[in-house]
């Protein structure tokens, strides 16, 4: 409860973790707000079906609030001229919105959307709220300043983790020799504030058919208790059609 998990990938695609957490929390009966910025609803829906969860049904019942970034963006840019009743969560993309203060556009509208969808209105049978973001690096590509992104995450943490006792899971891309300084700034900052970091990396030795990558699990015990060391575990993994198998380093099924 009240945990901030950071999903990080380097030189590989860590989106399988997003699919896992989505189906995990939905199966556990939590109310999930999913900010999906990079892929369409049908993509997640099809993968979730393979993992045994029906996204459309969850959306109908109100368990899942799905913000499809691509669709919202299109509605905003190609939509009608008149202002809709409620401002779009992605309105930082256009300079129409009056809430854009001065020269920097902040992600306040996005945060309001998240807060509104996760705050329980009336009796709810769902367990703790969860915010899932895929992925945060896209916000930088769309013109948000790194500080704005960090503020957004900070507000989300305060609201979801502390006030509502929920969890936040965020996916970011990063790389050690990346030239994208803004992205690295955001990722490093988030690393310092996370309770749990799941870091998927491509193998340093190159491409391999049987081992798709390496996963570092870092439990940041030093955050909660002074003097404690962070616990680091490393596993390797192979992604299959319906699940992911983890094994200790060097002990892949192909080798044994």
């Amino acid at each position: 409860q009240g945990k901030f998990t950071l999903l990080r990938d380097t030189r590989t695609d860590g989106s399988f973790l997003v699919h896992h957490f989505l189906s995990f929390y939905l199966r556990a009966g939590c109310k999930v707000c999913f900010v999906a910025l990079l892929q369409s609803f049908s993509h997640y829906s099809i993968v979730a079906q393979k993992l045994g969860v029906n996204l459309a049904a969850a959306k109908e019942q109100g368990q899942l609030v799905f913000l499809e970034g691509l669709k919202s963006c299109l509605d905003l840019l190609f939509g009608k001229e008149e202002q809709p009743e409620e401002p779009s969560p992605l309105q930082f993309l256009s300079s129409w919105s009056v809430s854009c203060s001065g020269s920097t556009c902040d992600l306040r509208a996005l945060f309001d959307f998240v807060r509104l969808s996760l705050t329980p209105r009336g009796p709810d049978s769902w367990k703790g709220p969860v915010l899932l973001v895929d992925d945060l690096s896209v916000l930088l590509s769309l013109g948000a300043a790194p500080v704005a992104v960090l503020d957004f995450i900070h507000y989300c943490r305060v609201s979801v983790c502390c006030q509502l006792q929920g969890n936040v899971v965020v996916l970011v891309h990063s790389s050690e020799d990346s030239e994208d300084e803004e992205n690295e700034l955001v990722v490093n900052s988030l690393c310092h504030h996370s309770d749990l970091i799941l870091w998927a990396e491509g193998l340093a030795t190159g491409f391999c058919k049987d081992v798709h990558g390496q996963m570092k699990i870092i439990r940041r015990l030093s955050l909660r208790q002074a003097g404690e060391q962070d616990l680091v575990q490393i596993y390797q993994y192979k992604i299959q059609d319906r699940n992911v198998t983890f094994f200790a380093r060097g002990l892949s099924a192909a080798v044994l």
Partner: protein
Amino acid sequence: LVFTEEDKYNLYSNLLFKYFLAEGVVCGHDLFVASAKEHPENILKELPAPLLDDTCGKELGDEAAAVKSEDFQDSMKIAWRYQNLPKMETSPTTYTKFGHYYDLSKKMSPELCQSVKWHSFYLHEELSFEPKMKAWNMNSGYARLLQSIQRIISQEGFDGSDPQKKQRNVLRIGIQSLGSILWGDDVCCSDTPADPHSLTKFLYVLRGLLRKSLSACIITVPAHLIQNKAIMERVTNLSDMVVGLESFIGSERETNPLYKDYHGLVHVHQIPRLNSLICDVSDTKDLAFRLKRKLFTIERLHLPPDLSDTVSRASKQELAASAKLLSSGCGATGKRHLDF
């Protein structure tokens, strides 16, 4: 969304672009061609003619037959352990018939071109932008292109908005040399462009349009001109498939004996992972391309046997360095020579 990094002189990536469009014509898809460099009509006139089934099959069949006959004649005597490994397939065999083959020496006939509906967007012929788009915070050329694409998609019903339409078709979009100075974007000229987010915003909106409709898009970008590598990383994240073409013209690799049969390398940086947890990864990542008189082929790069007598140390080092570059799938560390 297929993102192609152009080679230096834009010879080979243009070929890929034309192949994509030609395939669209042969399959009966609608086309949308956008360019700031040459008029789309001219591009369409230059498409290669499709090879008729029997001639193509015969050509490839001849090659395959010749290779096979050598195979059965002598079994290996020294390296007999390798006998049981499958023979290295460098080019696609006749069994895998996916798509069509094209003859580069002939142009596509005008009747075939006219048989599909095509739309064009030539930047310099478009009217100046409308005031509504000022709110987009994007380069005006890109904004106009997006508007044009969206208009075609909704008018022609590619997004399923018109239930009356009898059969659904696919729209193939080709955008040439995006990001170059001709589009009004200085991302290729300076390290700190005036609007670094234009290109990425454009790609994001394009991605949304593609996801919402029955369309596929290929974009070629002069990536070697983009100084700001951060933008390239973001662009890679936003695309489904990223392919880079590196030609050997004018580089030191032209004379490297390792590459003597080929004209360039193909780098597949990213493959689409749509609707599933995994993607279809091929077992080799070293691909090279070759431009024969009629065909443009992409093959696996394999080292030729080292048969020369005069193998000096210097060339061996070079080969080793390039071999190291080949096998590291992620992030090659260059060899650093200490020159005195």
